[in-house]
Every structure is written in structure tokens, then in C-alpha cells.
């Protein structure tokens, strides 16, 4: 065809120069050649400038510094690192730190974002308003502010580790308290009820929760039963709530002692306490969380100076196998449904397959948690200056993680909301008219369509989150930006090499994520046909 054209045209007179510009066949080529020449000249100009600037400064382009001793410390590392390690290793530590924040941030942001997005669509006036406020506040204020504020607040308001210590004075007060309690007739259930502080915030909140739980239980029971039985059923959670609250939360609801007596004997507990069943301690230095320890570890080895832990590998392998096995169970159930029409109950098999092997493995390995605590001497007085055991998570990490996931979750919430709203009401009405129950409608009709709308922007939010981890520099979090683009750059003075390498790494991460997105998009498109 091309031949036919050119022959047809060639017969109509010779070539004129103006055809280069005003002939549709040559115009595009001319413009592109001109653009190519200009572009190459521009690149050449840049390169020339770089060479001359480097010359003037007596520098060259050399990546050798990557194998030179780094000489600086990094507080949080996933793989072994000391200040004797090379800059190259510091770069990898930074990259891993970036990826760790990004990974947990994405998970947390997705969970919060999906919840907020769905709740924002709820027909509950109060909840949808609250969620709107959440989304608007986090969307319209710079991320940097959230990072800085979170960091400052957790590091300035948290107590020093010393506040968790049990001092001799506390022990004395405890002894004194026991005496008074014995006189007052013990720390019984009745005294807790009479001691309720009805004007305090905790009591008010507690009462509100009680009303909510009983009202909701009543509403639920009333829709199925008559009034008498419903009242009986609604009373069960209410009573349970009262008992649970009085036993578990009693200190804040009803201090046993009057203020004057308590102040006379001094504090009986340390100024600060660990929370979540006495396992996590928030101090102004960091967050102390329990560390998983194994009694019978499988050992490990080192591959190119990166340690490989066989136990972790085993856990990952078991999880993968379980997921695969679960898939085949579901597939079999699908097949059974296709042939016989009835679907076997599989949820408990799934649960078993998913969790039993893992639990067995962990038991076999002897998993237990090392809780952070102060060493205690014979009398029960805490020793030392900081917690022993467990893992101390840096506040920079915590602040970055919290701020990133709250900020990103606001955007994800909007994406989820828009995705669900994009499915017209007609779809759910059509499904309902066919007799599908709401759960099935969601799973078979709404979600497959909504996900197609949701996932591409969701992944670009993940991309944003990953790039935004570079703001960790504001709280001195040593990620890729902090090591390669920060300390290493300043120490070696190799701006060009460091920046190029850093951009290359970020670009690679981004391209991997976006190619994943493209793969998803094309997969979805195939299904459309």
C-alpha cells in the first residue's frame, strides 16, 4: 500500500522542498528529525556542562565510594550493619527501611481507608459526618505537618523509661495501702460499685457504651422475638458489660479509696504503665514491643553477607503452601457447585488449612514472646535505666508510619467511596430482583465491578506512599533518602553519583509498581471481552 501511494504521488511531479513541511507524508518525519536534533543537542549541552563543571571542581564520576567504610551508625536495621560496613551496605539498609515503612504503611492505610470509605457511605448521619471530617482534615493539610506533629507529640508527651520503674517508695506505699484496704473490708465488688465516680468522663463514656450495647441488642432481638424474650436477651450483654467493666476497668471508674487517704500514702503504681496486656511500653525514647523468640530455631546461613533465617523461610513456606491448599479447596467447592448445584460448607476447612499448619509449626519451633521489662531484684525493685528485652521501635519509624497511613488512608477512603458509588444503584437492585442476598450481591456483583474502578488509583496511592516515605528525613528516619541522599552524600561529597543512584532506585520501585498496575489493567480488560 505504501508503495502504491508513493508511486501514485511520484507520478505527479517532482520533489519540492516545501513538501518537507506541507506534505502529510514528510511533515511528521521532518518535525521529528528537528525535534531529535534539538533533543540530542540539549542532552549534549547538559553532558558537556557536567564534564566541564566536574573538571573545574577536580572531580570525576566514580562509584567507588560505595565500597568504602561508611563510618556512621544507623539505629534501625533489618540486616546486620555496623559503622564499619560499606556505604553500599548503608544504602541497602536505607532501601530496606524505606520498603519496610512503605509495606506496613500500605497495609495500614488500606485497612483504615477501606473502613473509612465504607463508613462514609453509611446511612448513619453521625458516622458519615465524622468520616467526612476525617477525610477532609487529613487530605487538606500537608503530610509533613502530620509527620512532624505525630513525632513531636509522641516523643514529648510520652514518659521517660524511668517512669515505668518500681521504686522502693512504691513498694512501701503498696504495703501501706494493703493495710488500709484490710481495715476497710477489702477490695470487693460492692465497694467498687459504691465508689463509682458518676461525674467523670470515663463513667460517662462507659454509660454511653452500655446504653449503645443494650439498645443495639434489644433492636436485634426485637426484630426476631417478642418483647419479653427480647428484653431478656438484651439484658445478657448489658450485664456482661457491667461486670466486665467493673472488674477490668475499675481503677478509672471507681477508685476504691478517697483522695485524701490515697494522697497520704503516695503512689502505689509507677507513674506510667505498659498497655495491651502489659506488653507494650511507650516511652519518650521509643516504643518497646515484645520480640518473638524461638526455643528450637532452625538456624540460618549467610548468602553474600545477607543473613538468611531458615525459621522465617519455613514460616513463609508454610503460609504459601496453606494458601495454595486453601485455593484448591475453594476450587473443588466451585467445581462441586457447578456439577451438583449445592455448595459444600468450606469455611471451617479453610480456617483449619490456613491456620493449623502454621500454629503447629510455631509450636514446634517453640515460639514465645520476650516482653520488654526492667530487671527486678529480690525485693521487686526495678534496676537499670531502660527496658531490657523486646524490640525498641524508633519514634521516627512510628511517627512516619502513623502519619503516612493516616494521610494516605484519607485518599484511599475517597477512592473506595467513589468506586462503590460508581456502581449504579441499578446493579444492586437487579441483583436483589434476581433473589441474591446482600452478601452474595456484594461478592458477586458489586465488588468485581467496584474493584476494577478502585484498584488502579489505589495502586497509584501506594506509589505515592512509597515516594512519600522520603519525608522521613524530617524526623531523621534513615531511609534511602537519609542514608544515600543524606549522610553518605554529605560525607563523600559525591552529589552527582548519589542523586543519580537514588533516583534510579526510586524510579525502579515506581516502575515495578506501575507495571504491576498495568498488568492488572490488561487482565481486567481481557475479562471484559
Amino acid at each position: 500500500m505504501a508503495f502504491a501511494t508513493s508511486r501514485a504521488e511520484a507520478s505527479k511531479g517532482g520533489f519540492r522542498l516545501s513538501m518537507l513541511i506541507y506534505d502529510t507524508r514528510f511533515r511528521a518525519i521532518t518535525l521529528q528529525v528537528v525535534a531529535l536534533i534539538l533533543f540530542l543537542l540539549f542532552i549534549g549541552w547538559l553532558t558537556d556542562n557536567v564534564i566541564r563543571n566536574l573538571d573545574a571542581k577536580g572531580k570525576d564520576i566514580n562509584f567507588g565510594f560505595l565500597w568504602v567504610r561508611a563510618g556512621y551508625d544507623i539505629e534501625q536495621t533489618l540486616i546486620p550493619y555496623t559503622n564499619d560496613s560499606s556505604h553500599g551496605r548503608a544504602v541497602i539498609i536505607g532501601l530496606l527501611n524505606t520498603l519496610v515503612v512503605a509495606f506496613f504503611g500500605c497495609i495500614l492505610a488500606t485497612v483504615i481507608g477501606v473502613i473509612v470509605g465504607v463508613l462514609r457511605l453509611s446511612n448513619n448521619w453521625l458516622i458519615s459526618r465524622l468520616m467526612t471530617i476525617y477525610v477532609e482534615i487529613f487530605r487538606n493539610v500537608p503530610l509533613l505537618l502530620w509527620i512532624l506533629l505525630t513525632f513531636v507529640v509522641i516523643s514529648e508527651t510520652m514518659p521517660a523509661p524511668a517512669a515505668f520503674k518500681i521504686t522502693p517508695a512504691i513498694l512501701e506505699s503498696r504495703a501501706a495501702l494493703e493495710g488500709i484496704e484490710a481495715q476497710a473490708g477489702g477490695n470487693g465488688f460492692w465497694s467498687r460499685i459504691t465508689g463509682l465516680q458518676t461525674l467523670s468522663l470515663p463513667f460517662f463514656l462507659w454509660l454511653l457504651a452500655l446504653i449503645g450495647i443494650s439498645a443495639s441488642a434489644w433492636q436485634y432481638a426485637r426484630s426476631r422475638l417478642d418483647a419479653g424474650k427480647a428484653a431478656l436477651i438484651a439484658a445478657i450483654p448489658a450485664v456482661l458489660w457491667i461486670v466486665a467493666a467493673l472488674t477490668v476497668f475499675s481503677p478509672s471508674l471507681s477508685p476504691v479509696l478517697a483522695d485524701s487517704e490515697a494522697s497520704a500514702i503516695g503512689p502505689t503504681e509507677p507513674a506510667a504503665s505498659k498497655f495491651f496486656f502489659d506488653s507494650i511500653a511507650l516511652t519518650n525514647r521509643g516504643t518497646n514491643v515484645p520480640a518473638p523468640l524461638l526455643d528450637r530455631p532452625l538456624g540460618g546461613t549467610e548468602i553474600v553477607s545477607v543473613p538468611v533465617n531458615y525459621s522465617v523461610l519455613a514460616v513463609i513456606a508454610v503460609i504459601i503452601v496453606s494458601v495454595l491448599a486453601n485455593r484448591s479447596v475453594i476450587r473443588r467447592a466451585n467445581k462441586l457447585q457447578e456439577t451438583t448445584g449445592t455448595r459444600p460448607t468450606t469455611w471451617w476447612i479453610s480456617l483449619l488449612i490456613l491456620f493449623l499448619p502454621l500454629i503447629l509449626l510455631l509450636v514446634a519451633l517453640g515460639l514465645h514472646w520476650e516482653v520488654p521489662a526492667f530487671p527486678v531484684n529480690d525485693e521487686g525493685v526495678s534496676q537499670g535505666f531502660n527496658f531490657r528485652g523486646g524490640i525498641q521501635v524508633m519514634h521516627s519509624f512510628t511517627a512516619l508510619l502513623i502519619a503516612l497511613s493516616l494521610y494516605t488512608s484519607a485518599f484511599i477512603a475517597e477512592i473506595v467511596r467513589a468506586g462503590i458509588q460508581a456502581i449504579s444503584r441499578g446493579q444492586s437492585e437487579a441483583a436483589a430482583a434476581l433473589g441474591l442476598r446482600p452478601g452474595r450481591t456484594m461478592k458477586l456483583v458489586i465488588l468485581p465491578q467496584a474493584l476494577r474502578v478502585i484498584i488502579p488509583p489505589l495502586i497509584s496511592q501506594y506509589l505515592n506512599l512509597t515516594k512519600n516515605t522520603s519525608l522521613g528525613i524530617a524526623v531523621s528516619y534513615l531511609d534511602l533518602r537519609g542514608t544515600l541522599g543524606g549522610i553518605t552524600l554529605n560525607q563523600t561529597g559525591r552529589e552527582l553519583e548519589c542523586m543519580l543512584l537514588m533516583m534510579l532506585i526510586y524510579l525502579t520501585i515506581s516502575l515495578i509498581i506501575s507495571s504491576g498496575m498495568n498488568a492488572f489493567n490488561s487482565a481486567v480488560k481481557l475479562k471484559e471481552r
Partner: protein
Amino acid sequence: MTDTSHLWVREEMLRPEPPPLREAGLVKWVRENLVSSPVNTLLTVAGLLVAVWGIWTAFPWWWHSVWNASSLGECREIVAAAGGESGACWAVIKARWHQFLFGFYPPEHYWRPILTGGLLFAALAPVLFWNDRKSAHMVGFAGIATLAALYAVSANSLAFAATAVIFAVIWVAASLRPASLIWVTGLFPFISIWLIWGGSFWNPVNQLLAIALGALVARVYYNNTSKWLNDAFALVIALAAAYVASVVIGYSDAISTDFFGKLREASFWQGFGQQSDNVFSMVFGALASVLVMALTAAIWLLLAITYVFSAVLNYNLADLAGLIWGETPPEWAGSAWAGMISLGALLAFALVFVAARNRSVVIGILAGLLAGGGWLLYQAPKMVTYMATDLPLTIAPVSSNMIGGFLLALIIGVTAIAASLPLGIMLALGRRSDMWLMKVLSVGFIEFIRGVPLITLLFTASLLLQYFLPPQTNFDLILRVIILAALFSAAYLAEVIRGGLAALPRGQYEAGDSLGLTYWQAQRLIIMPQALKISIPGIVSTFIGLFKDTTLVSFVGLLDPLRGVTTTVRADINWKGIYWEPYIFVGAIFFIICFGMSRYSMYLERKLKTDHR
């Protein structure tokens, strides 16, 4: 069938009655909106819990706000004296608000950024309302607000009088003919730069003269009817193009000899392969070496082609020169690159001449740019010095490192946004272009910018840009940051606009074609107005994102309101340990601006929709 009748006729029409109590009023609202199901009841209570807890804990803090104190300690004393456990210490805002807003801008010159801000609204009015009476109201409000702000910073009476007069004039013009405000928009960039950075008034005048000259040249080129004049014009432009081409090719000769020599002896790969004591570094080194070698090979290939090409030419040219000049041809004909130069210049001349004779749009723009740029480069400095001796209309210069706070955020935000819009449009068009090269270049640029964090680009601005520019070029850090921020948001805008373009039906392009509009006419008159309208939500959210991202400039040492100024304030011994108040203040201002923008875009979207239905 005959004896049973189905006939029934209503004798009297029913009157509407109010619904039962359960279906009306507050009860209905509560039933529907708060307790419609057990889950909803639980959710309502959970929401109430959160709300009550939040108000209960925050309320005393707000209630005990302290506005007058000189230090955090004093604040705490006042709160304790009032019987509160905690209280907000807004005194820090009262003491330092000017730094949050203006950085270290000299207080006696606060009227300058304030006037600029007021003029910004006047300049925005025609963009927002176009030919509407509302723009006059907006100018009026902006004027009053500006005067009020001037009063708040106790500006001198001269500034007051000048502001009042300026706004009065603009207001009268806007009331008479709203469209005339577009002139304010056009003048604003030059006036605002002069107002903020100070210096001679003749600088903006000269820039405007350059633009006027450029516009005049382009206009004469397009609108003259004389064929003779047009040919003469084409000849001049083509000669200029030939000259530029020869200079550029000569320069590229210098680059290439220098560049490839350097590359050959470069220690580029010395880093790899050294200290390869473990597998990892060896793999890394090998990969890097392969990459470098591939790049070098590509460049060498290009060079070889060019050399062969020019050598052939050179041979012919040398022969030709020998015919003309006898045995000793002039020096230029001997060089391999001289052939390239002559050929390139000739080609440039011919192409530009042909295009210029046909009144090409691009040529007109280039001619205008050339004329304006020539004026700025050669004539403007002379004129400034000449006028400065006779009539020195100069205001005190303010250096960039004194500009900070929200002033800085707004300067960077507004400028980068304004600059990124045309760039984003060009990139979007490039990405949708049929031409392979344009597409590849646009996609490459967009994906690169979107693939790296803004922070690395800002570091590029502060650390690397000096490497990529000719030695000894150095210009203002704020300007460098604005350039990189504009490139950044242009890449994002390009994607947004591309979406808008894709949403336009093909018929619009075809209708434009069938009416005989050229590509650029169709883009400007038909495609872009619609595509931009479709992409308004995306554009505004890109703008909001960019505005929030202006806080990142603190990482390259500029005084942004968030980290720069707040850190300064918190480092003050009087205010050490304060954190909620400055962050709430800064956050609230950002929230108002960003939330306002997003609401405005929603309003705009609705308005544009109803306009056409």
C-alpha cells in the same frame, strides 16, 4: 358476564393527610439516620463515644486559651492561676504571626507582599469570572481586604494611598468593562516580582517592552497583506535561523571533541570491579559496567554515523572549495564539521524560509521570542542603567533568603502552578501525538518525574542543577525550586489533561477538521476548552497537592511555614516545648486554602455542568 359488574366509581376524592408521627419530624430523622438497624445503633454510639471523648478532652484546653504572654512558662502560670490543668498558649502566634506569614521579610516593607496578594485576586478575577460583573465585586473586596491588612501591619500612609488609588482605578475599569481586567492579569507577573524582590521599576517596564515588541513583530508577520513584506520577513527569519544553526552545530563540534575525549579517559567504571570481595558487589559492578558500556557504545555508534556523513560531505566540499579558491581553500572548508555546519545552516535556512513564507504559527512565535529576547539581552540593561540615573524609581531590594512563611509557600505554589499548566498541556498533547519521538519523549519525561519523590527533585534543584548548567551560572534558589516544582506538577497535570482529552468524542476533532481549522486552532478553540473543563477536578487536586508540597522546600534550606518557621519558633528559649499551637495554626491556614480550593472546584464543576444542560 352480564350479571356481575366490575364497575366501581369513586364518589369523592381523598384529601392528603399527614403521615403518622413515626414517619415525620425529628423522630423520623433519628430513626432513619441514627438507629435504622442494630449495627447502625452501635455505630452511632461508637461515634458519640469518639465525639464526646474528643470534646471532653480538648475543650478545657481551648477554654483556657491564653493570648497575652511572653513565654510558654508565663502561659502555664496564667492557666494554672485560672484553675485549668492545661490551656492553649496562642500567645506564641500573637508574638510570631508575622514570621509565619512573611518569614524574615523586613517589617517596614510588609505592604509590598500584601499589595501583591491583593493584586493577585484582582488578576484572578477575569480568570474566574471572565466577563462578569462579579469580577468588579471581587476587585472591590480584594481592595478593602488589602487596605485592612495594611492597617493590621500598620503600613505607612504612602503605601495606603498608593494601594487605595491602584484599587480604585482597577475597580472603576472593572465596573465599566470587566474584560479589561485581563490587562491586570497580564501585568501582574512583572509587577509582583518587582514588588516582592524590589529593585528598579525599569526592570518590569523593560520586560513588558520586550513582550510588546515580540507581540508586535509576530502581529506584523501574521497580519501584513503585502507579499513583498512577507518574503522579506521570511528572508530575515531564515537568515537568523541559518546563523543560529551554524553556531549550534559549531558548538556541538566543540562538545563532541571534548566530550568523547573525556569519556574515553573517564574513570567512570573504575568504581565497579574494585573491592569486589563478595558476590553482591561483583554482580552490581557487572551490571553497572554493562549499562555504561551499552550507553557508550550507543553514543559511539551515533558519532560514527555522523563522522562518516560529514566526511563524505567534507570531501565534496573540499573539492568544491578547491574549484573556487584554487589550491588553498579557506580553513573552514577543511574541517569535517564545516560540512555539517554549511549543510545544517542551509537546511535550516530553507526549511524556515518555506515555513515563514506560509505564515507558520511556530515561526511567528519564534520571531516574537527572538525579538523580545534580543531586546531583553542587548537593549534592556542599557536602558535600565540609563533611566536609573535620570529617574530612579527604585524600592529597596529584598533578598530571597529573607522571604519565608506562607509568603514563600504562595510564591512557589502560584508561580509553579501557573507555569505548569501550559507545560502540562504540551506534555499531554505530546503523549497523545501520532509522532513516535514526541510520544516517547513525553512519556519518558512524565514517567521519570512521577517515578521519583519531589524531595529528590528539590535536592536536584539545590545540589545538581549547578552541574547541568554552564560553569559559573548561578541563580536564585527560589527560582530553581520553582522550576523543579513546575516540572513536577506539569507531569501530573499532563496525565490529568490526557484523561480529559481521552474523554472527548472523536466527532469534535472531525468537526474541527471538516471546518478547515488547523491543528493548533482546533486545539485552542475546540479541544482544550472542553478537555480542561472535564479535567477541572483533577487539575485542582494537582494544584492542592503542589501547594501542600511547597512545605518540602524546607529540606533545601528555605523557610517554609511548617518546618522552617515553626522550628525557628520552637528553638526560641521562650517557646521551647510548645508544639500543638504552631502546628494547629499552620495546619488551619493550609486547611482553609486547600479546602476552599477543592470546594471551589466542586462549585465550578456544578456550574459548568448546568450551563450547558
